[in-house]
């Protein structure tokens, strides 16, 4: 009985500490305005995105892209709502199909999108042809930081196409995108 009481006694404060830490983090996030909570922007020359395509017969099967590489592509603006933002912010970044063209599709038909939080989703490449999906780098002119769904957030033009408002497309709004594997 005593041993049991001892175990419970040491477990509860630990749990309480964790709850306190979560509460402190929550309080910090809520207390700071979004501009302060942004975290640092991507450093120059830092690799933001890796593209891999094992279906290519020859040439580079994996390329690493910096912010400059992504900004060198034509930038497209999309004003849209989604369930993770308030209102209709302006998102800007290169088209997904333009980024993927940098490595080439080969015989690939699908793309596995991988985020920094290890979230993954597989998307049919034809969707990037049908819709102007962008790899957003900016929201309302502000660079997306890692603490705010950046540096790359996959954005679908949901307000322009009613069919994109289906809940299944919420899973494709991959934030903190770091790697795309074609297959």
């Amino acid at each position, binding site marked *: 009985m005593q041993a049991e009481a001892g175990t419970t006694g040491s477990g509860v404060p630990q749990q309480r500490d*964790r709850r306190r*830490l*979560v509460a402190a*983090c*929550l309080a910090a*996030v*809520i207390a700071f305005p*979004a501009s302060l*909570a942004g*975290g640092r922007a991507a450093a120059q020359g830092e690799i933001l995105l890796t593209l891999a395509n094992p279906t290519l017969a020859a040439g580079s099967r994996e390329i690493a892209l910096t912010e400059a590489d992504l900004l060198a592509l034509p930038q497209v603006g999309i004003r849209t709502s989604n*369930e*993770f*933002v*308030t209102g209709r912010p302006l998102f800007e970044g290169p088209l997904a199909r333009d980024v993927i063209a940098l490595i080439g599709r080969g015989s690939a038909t699908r793309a596995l999108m991988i985020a*920094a*939080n290890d979230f993954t989703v597989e998307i049919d490449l034809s969707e990037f042809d049908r819709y102007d999906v962008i790899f957003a780098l900016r929201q309302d002119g502000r660079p997306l*930081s*890692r*603490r*705010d*769904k950046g540096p790359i957030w996959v954005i679908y033009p949901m307000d322009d196409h009613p069919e994109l408002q289906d*809940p299944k497309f*919420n899973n494709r709004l991959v*934030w*903190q995108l770091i790697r795309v594997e074609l297959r």
Partner: protein
Amino acid sequence: MTGLRTASRVVVGVLVVSLLGLAGLGVTAFRSDFRALQTATQENIIWSATQVEFELARFLAALGMFGAGVEEVDADQVRLRYDVLWSRLALFDDSASGRRLKAYDA
């Protein structure tokens, strides 16, 4: 006889109308349940809360290993886990889930 026939017609009529009414109510109830279910799927508060717990555990593990001098974990990895944890918490401030949680407070 004619009176009886008229009465039975009235009864059948009432039955048909009631059945149609019930069917209509059923469809309305089903549609509102379906809509509620769709909203619940979209907002996913439990998923978001679980992800915070998960990322907190990953951050604490990375921090612990960095503090203990484990070679595989450098400061950049600890920063990455912290940023990901922060982004998970920030979601509660500006998202459909966050707005719904705030509505409970009001």
